[in-house]
């Protein structure tokens, strides 16, 4: 319940900021990194479901996002969380296809961003320049934020603040 509450609070704050300054912060630029970090932090069904539902709700007020985005995001989060729980470093079976844990949030954000912006490129109704601008703004905000959040997660883990399953 606590997990649900703080993920919801964070997501509400992120959507609020994005909606307050749509000219500076494109939709999802804060929400996606936050949800990616939250889902991978919790590594539980509750966290993934909550994140997915929040993305669905955000998609309702943002008609341009693809309806597969929450589904793909949640599925990828579940997939990556399973890897995190398996801890391939210890088993020594890590391969190229199993990216490092630090890259997981970034992968999630990339998946979310792909489904957020690719429809805009495919759909001719939107100006391509506008979509490129929005993608650029998104990248400038979302990538550093993801890196910061990943670093914070790592730091929390190092400091023993993170509950490991």
């Amino acid at each position, binding site marked *: 319940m606590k997990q649900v509450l703080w993920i919801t609070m964070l997501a*509400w*704050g992120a*959507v*609020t*900021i994005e*909606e*307050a*300054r749509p*000219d500076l912060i494109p939709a999802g630029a804060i929400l996606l990194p936050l949800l990616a970090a939250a889902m991978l932090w919790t*590594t*539980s*069904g*509750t966290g*993934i*479901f909550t994140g*997915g*539902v929040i*993305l*669905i*709700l955000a*998609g*309702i*007020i943002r008609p341009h996002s693809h*309806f*597969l985005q*929450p*589904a793909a995001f*949640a*599925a990828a*989060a*579940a*997939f990556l*969380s*399973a890897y995190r729980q398996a801890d391939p470093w210890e088993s020594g079976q890590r391969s190229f296809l199993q990216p490092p844990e630090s890259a997981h949030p970034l992968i999630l954000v990339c998946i979310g961003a792909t489904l957020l912006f690719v429809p805009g490129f495919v759909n001719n109704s939107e100006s391509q320049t506008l979509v490129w601008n929005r993608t650029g703004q998104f990248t400038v905000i979302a990538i550093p934020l993801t890196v910061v959040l990943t670093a914070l997660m790592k730091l929390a883990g190092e400091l023993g603040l993170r509950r490991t399953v």
Partner: protein
Amino acid sequence: MRIAACAVIVLSGCVEAAKHLQLLDGVQVAIHDAVSAGRLIAVAMRPSKHETSGIGPGNRDNDKETQILEQQRRRLMIENSRLHNELQRFRSSPASSQTYRPLVDYELLPARILSRQGLPDALASLMIDAGRAHGLTHRELVLDASGMLLDQGSDAGIDDGRIILTGSTVVGRVERTGRWVSQLQPVTSTDFSAQVRLIHRTSQPSSSNSSTEGILEGSGGGCRVVGVPETASVSVGDEVVSADINGITGPPLYYGTVTQAEFQSAGEWLITVRPGATTTEIERVVVVVPKLDMERITGNQMDPEQRRQL
């Protein structure tokens, strides 16, 4: 985790389907409302123009425009929410579900002139055979009708006395009804009479049209209106329309035009009317049958009962 991911996938599909069916309008407004408070706080916390440095005049114009657009957006969102709430209130109010339904409506039953001079012998013999097979009496078959016959009868819901129209002009009424045929009494028949209204059209469009009531009677070759007092204003060219339909107030039906209007010694007008339609010209007619709104009656019977139960 897999179950959670699957649940999100299913939920996502459901939401997309609901979006296509436009079922999410209320949810959309609710989410906007939920975010609205925080958004306003975030907007209020924005640094003002004076605090920002290094802004060129072009950027300032853009910012001003953005600000205006943002204000417009907020106004529209508030307006949208208000209208949404009003719509919800209207939908939930009992007045929205109650629309006016007249108790009596008129059904127009189409019929064709079967014969103008009574029932032909060939058809009469056929009807006698058919009537015998169905156990009908001579009267039910209307075999001795001498005037015009319609090819619809009581089996189609036609009763005696119903008004017969062509377009919106009265041709006559049903004099006798058989099982399959009816006898038409034209407006020119000496036995025909109906309550009518004379519409006096004034030349000035601003002044209202006056009307006088009287009784239209057939005079053999034409019609006349009697019972109009001498104080009434009548002139040639006035239009004669029905005052009612079988005693029930209804739309005015056209009878004809006044061609002659003279004072009688009895203190009444003698008004001659040219019928709007003659039976020699028409082949198809409609019979006006008043019908009760059964759905409304059933509803009215149930409502007090429900109210008592409550």
